[in-house]
């Protein structure tokens, strides 16, 4: 029972690790942290990358080992690809924090026709894509046609 409580506490702690590239979100918010389980004598932390080549992944794994180590756990970090990561896992709360941070949150990934992206600064929906690829693999670059500010958009996938 103590082991189980320990795992739950560890999971809560690991979930709060901030994403290195979008620090307003945690790896729990993003759904990058999939599971914390016990296998035999050791704790296994399961993660999934946002994008196959996400360069933050190695850093996130190091952080997990570090945070778990500080909590007295020696963990194995395991990467899985299925189910494939989707922005639909992001909670409403996380989306609001993302917008407040200046990054337009993703729309639903499962529908093809979505509402125009809202400017995170002035809330206008008169926005346009500047570049389909942005500062990180998970973002595209957009511009608001009302306040004229450029902004990042978290791509829906």
């Amino acid at each position: 029972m103590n082991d189980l409580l320990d795992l739950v506490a560890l999971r809560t702690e690991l979930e709060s690790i901030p994403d290195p590239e979008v620090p307003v979100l945690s790896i729990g918010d993003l759904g990058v942290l999939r599971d914390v389980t016990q296998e035999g004598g050791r704790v296994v932390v399961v993660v999934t990358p946002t994008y196959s080549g996400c360069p933050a992944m190695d850093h996130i794994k190091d952080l997990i080992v570090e945070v778990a180590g500080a909590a007295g756990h020696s963990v194995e970090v395991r990467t899985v690809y299925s189910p494939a990561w989707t922005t639909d896992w992001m909670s409403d709360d996380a989306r609001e924090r993302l917008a407040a941070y200046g990054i337009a949150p993703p729309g639903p990934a499962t529908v093809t026709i979505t509402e125009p992206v809202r400017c995170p600064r002035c809330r206008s929906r008169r926005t346009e894509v500047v570049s389909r690829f942005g500062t990180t693999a998970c973002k595209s670059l957009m511009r608001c046609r009302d306040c004229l500010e450029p902004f990042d958009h978290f791509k829906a996938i």
Partner: protein
Amino acid sequence: MTGEDRARWVLRHADDCLVLAQRLGAQVSRGPDLEEDIAGANLAIDLLGQARALLTHAGELEGRGRDEDALAMERDERAFTNLLLVEQPDPDFAHTIVRQFLFDAWQVPLYEALARSADDVLAGIAQKGVKEARYHLSHSAGWVVRLGDGTDESHRRTAGALHRLWRFSDELFEADDLDLDMADAGLGVDPSTLRPAWEGTVERVLSEATLDRPRGTGSRSGGRTGYHTEHLGHLLSDLQYLHRSHQGASW
């Protein structure tokens, strides 16, 4: 199927991703504008991520203790089994885009089929990769249209790139015994089955781009058996130099 055979098949697809990622990475700072420069780097990093996952899986299937670095950095040219298309150089931006488009239009149906593989790891990599490949395809197809249906100069260069790269397109669909065995076992995909989807995409995009389907270009293959064009050796010397000269170095 033996682990060794499965590893050989996975390695083909890992090499496609790795070599194309290296080509794209080498173009960073040479894009026609800043946004496209960033786009190229993003395409490269997605493909590199897919390559790393596939290389790691191939190493595990092979069971000889080779990890992703050993497979990427310590094999010679003849041991690489990527498609000839992806190793072709970038004399201009039209070549970069046309190469990408011909590849993306193939990789999307490949990953769609591979997502149903009986190999769970391979299926997972493909389920993830297909989302990236679709995004890449919409980007490269958009550029083919923009360049083909653009100025006289961009049309001429894009038609030229298409003509020069077309000879490597038949190889995308060549199936050998290993392909067929992998497909029969429900683990892999018979590449010849990808042709209708590829043809559909290519025909639609070329027509919108006012580009004619090339004719009389001939056909080249050999990448899957390690017989490459002269360009791969030079690419690998760039890719592998540091690792081989400073073994075990890290930062």
